[in-house]
């Protein structure tokens, strides 16, 4: 069976046994999700590179020490938890916590709205981006977090539940409340968001 088709658990065991190529497969398989998740939190490419690198240094050190790898757990969830802890440590050291939404490099809302070059549509899109950004900021932290991980990092509810340490049902509930609250704010403020 080609290594690219082997499940994560087997690749990890092969890596612990000394097969370095298994690590390369794991990194390639999950790099996009891990990198995207980190970037969604820190919104800085250089910092994302550093945390991504540091995350895998910890993964490598833990596996090579044969300290811990729970066979029942998912490799990706485990790595994302490590990256999440590093992000928290970073912000704790900086004594600030922020989540930027739109930057010059990347705007999540550019993927939701129409990308037509029409100027009118572009102006409307910009206003929608601003309005949506302001609305999401008003959500409670746990609901905002689920929303961002779902749509920013393209994570499954199971993965979000593993990272946040709650059940899948709780995660689904938070998402439902997030959507409901968004609609309430939109109606209350009579914000027009054209489709």
């Amino acid at each position, binding site marked *: 069976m080609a290594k690219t088709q082997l499940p994560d658990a087997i690749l990890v065991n092969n890596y612990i046994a000394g097969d*370095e190529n298994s690590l390369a497969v794991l990194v390639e398989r999950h790099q996009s999700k891990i*990198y995207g998740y980190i970037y969604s939190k820190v919104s800085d490419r250089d910092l*994302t*590179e550093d945390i991504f*690198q540091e995350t895998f*240094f910890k993964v490598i050190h833990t596996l090579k020490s044969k300290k811990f790898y729970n066979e029942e757990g998912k490799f990706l969830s485990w790595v994302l938890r490590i990256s999440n802890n590093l992000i928290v440590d970073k912000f704790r050291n900086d004594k600030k916590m922020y989540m930027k939404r739109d930057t010059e490099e990347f705007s999540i809302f550019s993927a939701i709205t129409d990308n037509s070059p029409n100027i009118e549509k572009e102006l409307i899109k910009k206003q929608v981006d601003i309005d949506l950004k302001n609305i999401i900021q008003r959500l409670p932290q746990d609901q905002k977090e689920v929303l961002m991980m779902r749509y920013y990092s393209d994570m499954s509810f199971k993965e979000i539940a593993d990272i946040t340490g709650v059940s899948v049902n709780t995660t689904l509930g938070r998402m439902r409340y997030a959507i409901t609250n968004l609609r309430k704010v939109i109606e209350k403020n009579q914000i027009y*968001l054209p489709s």
Partner: protein
Amino acid sequence: MAKLYSKRKLVPKEMLPKKETLRLILQYSRALNIVKVGNLSFDIIAN
């Protein structure tokens, strides 16, 4: 308002680490050797 649910990936394809970062990670893995002596562990990085 349009539905917020979208089947399209919202993360651009270019959201990947640099090749240098990946190379460094794999090099670190190849170079790292952890030796246990009694209750102590020593990290050895081969040049």
